């Protein structure tokens, strides 16, 4: 789960990491109240689950009511990299002497947690120079390690104990919330040497959600995604018109790539899991019937254990029950495919021997109907 900035900062506060005073709203009415309470000047920050907000103009300073009335609705209506603004954080500005970078993340290659810190903050991690990197096992950071990092990034005076404290609190949060990433970028050093988390990014391990009912409130999913998850599927809505369905994440990704190579645009990515049964395919069609923009359905199933005829019967049932009326372009690899073809003759489901030809037919269909 990727938390929005204000949610990450709620966690930071809970763990005693200092953040600027801020208020979050989702409507202009609430925003106006927040502005009054906070007092000008402040920063208006779009809450979106992607980076690059600054460049996109989704973070702006605000000095007066007039400016507020103009900018708040603009930023609320904005999208950054295709992600709509979820909420608006109004935040007081701080007197900053210097900006640092600090994160703890799951290092997949090394199979341990790793600290990254730098004396240069405020830019994306890939362009952060002079990185100090420390591997810390399961994420626990002891005092001496934290002190070493503080010194290596050139801190002195009371900023050292401040940094040690911040890093140890971030470590506690990472462990207890099972975060894959907990990043403070930038960390501000204020005039008095104290540290403040100006921005926050926390990504938790979705597979540990069952141990974290307290994070449930941050979960942002559409009704259809919730239903997909209950069925043990993964569904990701995309911009195009062709629903892409398959069994197994790799196979569906591969189908999506080939569709895109052939000029097709996917309406969704739907992985029904490793198996391919009558029930799972019927449930997939049920989910897709709820996505309005879908013009054609592309299905790529690699059977092997299950007979393709049991899958074919799911299409027939879906048409009979008027669940779907869209054409299906399917490649079903597995036993009895000739029999399946026979079963589906005269229906809106066309079976193909290769996924490439199914993709071509789906792309043609969507082009034909413009």
């Amino acid at each position, binding site marked *: 789960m*990727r938390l929005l900035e204000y949610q990450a900062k709620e966690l930071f506060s809970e763990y005693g990491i200092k953040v600027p005073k801020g208020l979050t709203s989702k409507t202009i009415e609430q925003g106006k109240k927040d502005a009054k309470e906070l007092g000008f000047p402040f920063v208006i920050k779009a809450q979106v*689950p*992607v*980076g690059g907000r600054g460049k996109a103009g989704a973070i702006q300073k605000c000095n007066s009511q007039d400016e507020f009335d103009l900018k708040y609705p603009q930023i609320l209506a904005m999208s950054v*990299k*295709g992600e709509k603004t979820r909420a608006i954080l109004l935040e007081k500005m701080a007197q900053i002497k210097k900006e640092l970078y600090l994160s703890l993340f*799951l290092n*997949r*290659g090394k*199979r*341990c947690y790793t600290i990254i810190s730098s004396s240069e903050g405020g830019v*994306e*991690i*890939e362009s952060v120079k002079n990185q100090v990197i420390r591997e810390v*096992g*399961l994420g626990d950071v002891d005092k001496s390690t934290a002190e070493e990092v503080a010194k290596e990034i050139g801190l002195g005076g009371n900023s050292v104990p401040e940094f040690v404290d911040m890093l140890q609190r971030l470590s506690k949060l990472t462990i207890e919330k*099972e975060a*894959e990433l907990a990043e403070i970028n930038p960390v501000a050093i204020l005039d008095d040497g104290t540290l403040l988390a100006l921005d926050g990014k926390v990504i938790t*391990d*979705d*597979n*540990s959600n*069952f*141990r974290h009912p307290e994070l449930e409130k941050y979960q942002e999913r559409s009704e259809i995604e919730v239903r997909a998850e209950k069925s043990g599927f*993964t569904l*990701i809505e*995309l911009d195009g018109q062709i629903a892409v369905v*398959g*069994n*197994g*994440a*790799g*196979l*569906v*990704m*591969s189908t*999506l*790539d*080939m*569709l*895109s*190579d052939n000029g097709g645009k*996917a309406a969704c*990515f739907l*992985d029904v899991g*490793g198996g391919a049964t009558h029930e799972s395919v019927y449930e997939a069609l049920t989910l897709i019937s709820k996505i309005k923009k879908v013009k054609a359905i592309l299905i790529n199933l*690699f*059977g*092997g*254990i299950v007979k393709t005829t049991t899958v074919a019967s799911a299409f027939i049932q879906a048409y009979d029950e008027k669940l779907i009326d869209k054409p299906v372009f399917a490649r079903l*690899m597995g036993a009895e495919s000739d029999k399946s073809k026979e079963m589906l003759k005269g229906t809106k489901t066309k079976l193909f021997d*290769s996924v*490439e030809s199914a993709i071509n037919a789906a792309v043609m269909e969507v082009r034909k109907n413009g």
Partner: protein
Amino acid sequence: MANIFELLQGKPGDSDYNKKPVIVQGITGKFGSLHTKLMKEYGTNIVAGVTPGKGGQKFEDIPIYNTVKEAVDKTGSKISILFVPAKFFLSAALEAIEAGIKLLVAIPEHVPVRDSLIMLELAKKNDVVIIGPNTPGIMIPEIIKIGIMPASPFKSGDIALLSKSGTLMYEVANNLTEAGFGQAITLGIGGDPINGIRLIDAFDMVKDTPNLQGMVVVGEIGGDAEETLAQRIIDSNFKKPIVAYIAGRAAPKEKRMGHAGAIVYGNYGSAESKVAMFNKANIPVAKRPGEIPMLLAGKLEQSD
């Protein structure tokens, strides 16, 4: 590095050569029981099952024990395949390691990363090879299958097939088999962010296989396992033909594409980064799975 062939087959001359005993943890579950039958049909020597509370019963003539320890004591098995819900994975895996299992095939999906990390710490201390979690398993075609893959796509031969994905591995194996390329070994790394055997470890395990003709690596977006592997191939001066495939070129960034590990942050984990590294290692990357046999044939011709 453990000798994976020796773990799976034993040594020629062993009384149980090619018949290594295997334990199934979670043998009475829906998934566990189905695949126990299928593995047995394939010829895998399943000697015991473990389901707490069902000790003393039998499944398809296979004795069930309450604990892995009992099953190991009774059968001498060093291999276990684990089918338990993700919530119970860690305790089952630790139990297997403590009972003396040396090769653990971890099928469950949705295992929390922290649990995998804790398991791996103990596995390292005890010199245990972990395949998975979230893996289809491992097989030496026509000899032994420890996993959930269908039998039909695989055929014995001399190509090693390593894959992060399950069904895509079946797809690629099927393409290879149809083109006449059988497989010496096929190994599923798993789609999680943290893997027992990483791509690079799998490469090290199979690279010196006698008579190996070539290798196929099926990667996907997320992490940097493919990049690390490409660097290892360059450094180790491995000369046999390798062909790669990367799924997820068209995936949006910062979205988890079905596998917990299949997610791109910035350039980290991107298909472009992986393809660029494979190209640097002089490894062709197929655009689609169907292209792999052709590229492999081309590479083999060059090396003749």
